């Protein structure tokens, strides 16, 4: 028998993509289309679930099963779907407003329960679809449609929230960093349990340049640290800087200055406590470089693993249900 070269399944749908030209969402979609065929899963066994927002249009553009949800509720929808269909690979696509404002509860609980779904939070630090109001991740001072005098409050940090919810997989990547994003998405897909990925996404219409420090090829290596499991935290264009743990704080050190890689913090994504991961999540530009990659990847029983699984076949159920009806006191009235 001759080996027939089977064509790779195509994951692109026939729907017209309607983001603003230049939106970071395009880059993420294109990475997703690139990695999907390499995951060894058929399109019909994949479901994308989203909330509402520019980012949440994502499912329409992939030739898989999909549910465009209601604002903030995608993790809840996906939880029900995955519970009843453990055979499906389920992805959630959400925005910073969708996941951290209106739908924050659902995000926390999906992560806490370790539902086997992959949650991608496209963080553009702004409300895109509703035209530029501040979001829960907007930095203070930013002038937005609803804050002409600048945004007042401190933002939420998506990674910190995921870690605090005891997420078993937590990572961060950048829309236009194709290689890195592809790797992180593949890792998320391979994780068994809830995977949370924050993706820096540029909304050039309402918050352009929010992540230039992490995107711009000229500077990004000096402002970000790519985490590698088991490796010291080294960064910088010249790879001459590193992150060191001093007391209860992290500090940047120059390696040429008498410090060696041996003095640096070594990344352990499998650490059972999330304490160090929380410190890494707390590293914020411009005070510190920001971490990219997988902060945490641990193995814990999933939601489905923890739920009873003693259902009998439909045929065998009739007797069981009849028995349920007969439980307790019953009596027969003769004819």
């Amino acid at each position, binding site marked *: 028998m001759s080996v027939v070269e089977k064509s790779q399944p195509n994951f692109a749908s026939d729907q017209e993509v309607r983001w603003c030209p230049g939106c970071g969402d395009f880059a993420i979609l294109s990475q997703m289309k690139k990695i999907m065929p390499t995951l060894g899963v058929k399109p019909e*066994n994949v479901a994308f679930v989203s909330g509402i927002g520019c980012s949440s249009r994502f*499912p329409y553009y992939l030739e898989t099963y999909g549910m465009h949800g209601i604002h903030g509720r995608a993790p809840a929808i996906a939880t*029900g779907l995955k519970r009843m269909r453990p055979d499906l690979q389920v992805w959630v696509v959400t925005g910073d407003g969708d996941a951290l404002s209106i739908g924050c509860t659902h995000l926390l609980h999906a992560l806490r329960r370790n539902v086997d779904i992959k949650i991608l939070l496209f963080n553009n630090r702004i409300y895109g679809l509703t035209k530029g109001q501040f979001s829960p991740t907007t930095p203070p001072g930013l002038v937005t449609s609803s804050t002409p005098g600048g945004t007042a409050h401190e933002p939420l940090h998506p990674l910190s929230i995921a870690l605090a919810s005891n997420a078993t997989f937590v990572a961060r990547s950048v829309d236009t960093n194709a290689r890195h994003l592809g790797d992180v998405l593949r890792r998320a897909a391979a994780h068994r349990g809830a995977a949370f990925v924050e993706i820096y996404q540029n909304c050039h219409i309402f918050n352009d340049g929010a992540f230039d420090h992490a995107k711009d090829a000229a500077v990004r290596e000096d402002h970000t640290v790519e985490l590698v499991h088991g490796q010291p935290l080294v960064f910088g264009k010249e790879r001459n800087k590193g992150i060191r743990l001093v007391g209860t704080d992290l500090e940047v050190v120059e390696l040429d200055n008498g410090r060696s890689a041996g003095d640096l913090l070594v990344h352990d994504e499998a650490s059972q406590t999330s304490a160090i991961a929380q410190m890494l999540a707390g590293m914020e530009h411009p005070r510190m470089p920001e971490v990219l990659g997988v902060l945490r990847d641990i193995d814990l029983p999933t939601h489905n693993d923890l739920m009873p699984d003693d259902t009998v076949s439909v045929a065998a159920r009739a007797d069981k249900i*009849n028995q349920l009806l007969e439980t*307790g006191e019953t009596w027969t009235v003769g004819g």
Partner: protein
Amino acid sequence: MNECQQVEPVVRGSAQNAHSVVVRFAGDSGDGMQVAGSQVAVTSALMGNDIATFPDFPAEIRAPKGTPAGVSGFQVHFASSDVLTPGDQVDVLVAMNPAALKVNLDAVKPHGTIIVDVDAFDRKGLRLAKYENNPIEDGSLGEYQVVEAPITSQTRAAVAEAGVGHKIATRCRNFFAMGIVYWLYGRDLDATIRFIDTRFSEEVAQADKLALTSGWNFGETTEAFERSYVVPPAKPKPGTYRNVTGNEALAFGLVTAAYLSGKELFYSAYPITPASDILHKLSRFSECGVRTFQAEDEIAAICSAIGASFGGALGVTGSSGPGIALKTEALGYAVMLELPLVVINVQRGGPSTGLPTKVEQADLFQAVMGRNGEAPMPVLAASGPSDCFETVIEAWRIATKLMTPVMVLSDAFTANGAEPWNYPDIRTLEPISIDHPKAMTHGEPFMPYERDEWLARPWALPGTEGLTHRIGGIEKQNGSGAISYDPQNHETMVNLRAQKVKNARDLMTSLEMEGERSGELLIVSWGGMRGTCREAVKRARGEGKSVSHIHLRHLNPFPKDLGDLLRDFKQVIVAELNSGQLLQLLRAEYLVDASGLNKVRGQPFRIDDIAAQIDTSLEEKN
């Protein structure tokens, strides 16, 4: 299983026949009144009586002891003929303390019997109940037959030999009180003894049994009762029976609907009175294909159920008014998705937190109309505890046939009340057939919004090759399911969704009716008030009055023949526990000059309420 004919009532002395008896146990929340009442109910059912029950308890788990706020009651009606309601007024009130007497005195029939625990009528008890004088001594109970039973002291003395502590000894008081009632109405002790043996540790069980028999002996020896009674068995339809509450029947109905459609059930809920028992019950049925999910809130509950339905399961969520309010947005979403879903609302008194444990039927507008946009869905209401079983199965039939969410209404009265149920062998019930589209391998596009003769779209399951498609809350092109903002298409889709829901009329059984199909006066009821209205109309008809009764299970859409029927009566009275919601819907739909009989007190109608209305309406005619 017991053959009811074989149970001989144990009666002594000059027992008299009684046809129908209503007993209410009332005491503190912690006094075990619910156990007492439900044991009398089970025992009476086993003895062949027809029964109905009405638990009435405060929202607080342990409200201040001894005060009127903390009084918990359980009413049982047992009779030698059909029982349609828990009874308007009670023949016997058991009052475990002064507060219980104060709260329930109104419910006692003139010349009725009041059994009081005299030990509890001390200075403290009277003060907590805000009695200035002891009602037992001041002559205010003159018209009643008061039986002064030293329940607390005699219970303690009786259980001494079991060696339990003072606290447990005191907790056996409810069994002593039951013993008195069991003697009075010749109730068989066996079922309750079985209950005690399976429920409690050996020591406690012994104490409970001692209390029960001492109560019986007290009844027999006290001079206070003139006689005891026998309530002969009723003659129900042959079959096998059990008692069932509305919430139990909903749970049984859901597992059965899943079985009949070859599906697994996903039941998702956030705890709320009076719906929580459905979740409790179903969480014990995992073997029968049930997956329960206690969600983080009601929104997550319905959204996860929608996700489950998309995956091909029987997606169900249950709550009560405030929780249904939170589900509103997702209900509209389910309407847009055109996925099958069952949503249960066990109504309670509203608005807002309202009266969490009390009955009201004021969520009908919410069910029929409470969504943004044009978002119709079928609405069904159960007419009583056992009817919950069939109603929820029918809801799933409609949901899958028409690919739509369906709302099922119950209420606090139905949910907690119990009645005998001639339960089926589920293998004999009609299967619910569902066709999922098959895989398509030739590359032709799948049309997720193509419609069948019922206007339903296909329920394509994830995992099926060639049927990948996306659904969502944004308007879709009819047929292709692509996002569409086309004005004409939107109107078409709004009309299609509305017509599809109207098509539910062709799936309904015809109207269920008492009396002629035309005439002077028609009483219309819905939900848990069926029994009360039916009984009142039957009695009135027995007295030669010209009145008929219809009870509606389908509140949206209304049955086909309803309009003609309403127009064939000179007067139409719509009886409901709200300010006139069904009334408005009927008037708007049929332009009939109906009027309302309304009650919003957190209490069900009494038969007398309906009877009085029938008389007034018939007099007005003259």
